[in-house]
């Protein structure tokens, strides 16, 4: 039994090492993805280009603007003379928000009537516009309270603190998700393609006329990817820690254990799919659609599940990466003790086992096709 599994395992490693494409996926892609996602995907926006149309030209108005641009969030990129220049500035992307302080701002401030300030935002990028608007709103709320506080006490003094990711760094949030995506990629995608390839070239048939048992085939074909998936997961975490300073608060051994469970689920997914497709192309397409895309889009990796439409929220329950994300974020960012995460882990085990059982059966029946 061991000789048979070893024969398959050894051959599988030769395949991987001889194919430049799989080499890139296994050894280069994880690092590239961390660099790319780590640097490119960020939800915090800095240096928003702000224009100023100051029709008041008083010290009070200048003070207002200074408060705004002294933060990292805004940078004053131009001073306008009249409203007609705004669209010109937006079109040339010199600014994406313009603050308009009308004439008489200081006067009404002094007379304690309500003073009006207007902001115009370029909404062509809805994300940036929303963030810019929220920053500006927050600034003016604080500012108003400060001005009010000169005459009366603020009724509620809010002091927000963010735990686990105090700087709200996006990369801390992204990297754990990346581990899940890369493991999915290697363990589901590569396995399903390699099994499909054996079917396509007829070598699977040649293996099936030998006394090898289904479980031995599955073990021999998956062990290399289990190993590579695990190694890549570790590489991503360590690299993110060194390069981006992503924290690791929990116990690494527990994470390793849970990662193995997740890999098991990914593999069973890959095998499940490969048992249903005739060739490599289909295997690639199906695994992309069934595992990789959901892991990126529906797992909460980037887009919060809570803000999805109802239907997608329901769909996300059958995305294994979603459960692993709960585990890995919990361990890395919050330092949750391992045993407390048994629930999502149990789900992953069940999910994988159901798929594997169907596949083993299918492997036998597949002798028919």
């Amino acid at each position, binding site marked *: *039994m061991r*000789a*048979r599994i*070893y*024969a*398959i395992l*050894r*051959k599988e490693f*030769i*395949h991987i090492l*001889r*194919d430049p494409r799989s080499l890139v996926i296994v050894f280069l892609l994880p690092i590239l993805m961390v660099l790319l996602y780590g640097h490119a995907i960020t939800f915090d926006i800095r240096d928003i280009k702000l224009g100023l149309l100051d029709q008041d030209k008083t010290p009070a108005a200048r003070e207002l603007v200074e408060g705004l641009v002294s933060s990292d969030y805004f940078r004053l990129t131009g001073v306008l003379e009249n409203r007609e220049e705004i669209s010109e500035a937006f079109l040339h992307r010199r600014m994406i928000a313009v603050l308009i302080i009308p004439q008489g701002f200081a006067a009404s401030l002094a007379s304690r009537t309500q003073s009006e300030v207007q902001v115009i935002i370029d909404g062509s990028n809805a994300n940036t516009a929303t963030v810019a608007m929220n920053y500006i709103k927050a600034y003016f709320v604080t500012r108003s309270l400060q001005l009010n506080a000169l005459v009366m006490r603020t009724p509620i003094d809010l002091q927000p603190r963010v735990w686990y990711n105090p700087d709200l760094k996006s990369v801390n949030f992204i990297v754990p998700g990346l581990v899940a995506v890369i493991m999915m990629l290697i363990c589901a995608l590569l396995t399903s393609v390699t099994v499909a390839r054996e079917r396509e*070239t*007829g*070598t699977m*048939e*040649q*293996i*099936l*006329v*030998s*006394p*090898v048992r289904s479980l031995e085939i599955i073990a021999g074909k998956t062990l290399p990817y289990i190993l590579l998936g695990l190694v890549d997961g570790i590489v991503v975490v360590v690299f993110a820690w060194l390069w981006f300073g992503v924290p690791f608060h929990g116990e690494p051994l527990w994470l390793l254990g849970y990662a193995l469970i997740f890999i098991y689920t990914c593999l069973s997914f890959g095998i499940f799919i490969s048992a249903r497709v005739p060739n490599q192309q289909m295997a690639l397409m199906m695994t992309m659609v069934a595992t990789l895309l959901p892991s990126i889009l529906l797992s909460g990796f980037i887009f919060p599940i809570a803000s999805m439409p109802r239907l997608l929220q329901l769909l996300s329950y059958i995305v294994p990466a979603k459960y692993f994300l709960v585990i890995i974020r919990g361990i890395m960012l919050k330092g949750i003790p391992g045993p407390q995460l048994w629930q999502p882990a149990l789900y992953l085990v069940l999910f994988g086992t159901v798929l594997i059982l169907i596949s083993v059966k299918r492997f036998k029946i597949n*002798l*028919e096709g």
Partner: protein
Amino acid sequence: MEHHYSVVVEELTRRFGEFVAVDRVSFSVRDGEIFGFLGANGAGKTTVIRMLCGLLLPTSGKARVEGYDIHTESGRIKENIGYMSQKFSLYDDLTVAQNLQFYGGIYGLGRAELDRAVTAAIATTDLEAHLGKLTRDIPAGWKQRLALSCAILHQPKLLFLDEPTGGVDPISRRAFWGLIYDLAEKGTTVFVTTHYMDEAEYCNRLSIMHAGRIIAIGAPGELKARYRKQTIEDLFIDLVRGESAAPLSAKEGEGAQSL
């Protein structure tokens, strides 16, 4: 004279939906003989072989391979047979030696056994000079020899060859048949399918398949004498034509009984 049978098939049938690929086929293969299946593509030759190898379950009928039942003992059958398909089923990105090691490995051969088996196989098939080359880089004739070597590493009693000479030049084909004779001489039973008429002549006994049924069976010389034909080719064309015009179930019955 008493014969021992390597394969015994009774009324074997396989349907794919409405299509009857193999229709109540009965025949036996004697120990140590070269038994040929001659038929056009789609005649059902491969389907019969796949059922005998345990790759496909029959819809009805019985068969025993090396004494084991194909329904219940396919595991035992697999230990005793070798199989070479028309696709050669090799790994192009592995070297010749690595292919041999792999196929030996999945038959559970230990390192020492494997070395001995590989040495024996390459001595038979002359592969020595190609061992270190990538399989994709060697000519079709050598791929064919490699596929054969892979199929005989575990010294099977019965060797199935499913159109083993497809896509190979005539000289390699002739040489390949030389190898088949060598194996048979050493006691291996060979069950070979082909659609080449000249190859059919090389077999000890031959069964002609058409549209899922066996329409004639016997030694090539015997068949030619019985139907008064000079060549197997004439015989084959005549039989198939006759079958297409008016299927004669009597003839099929006669063929099966003449074992």
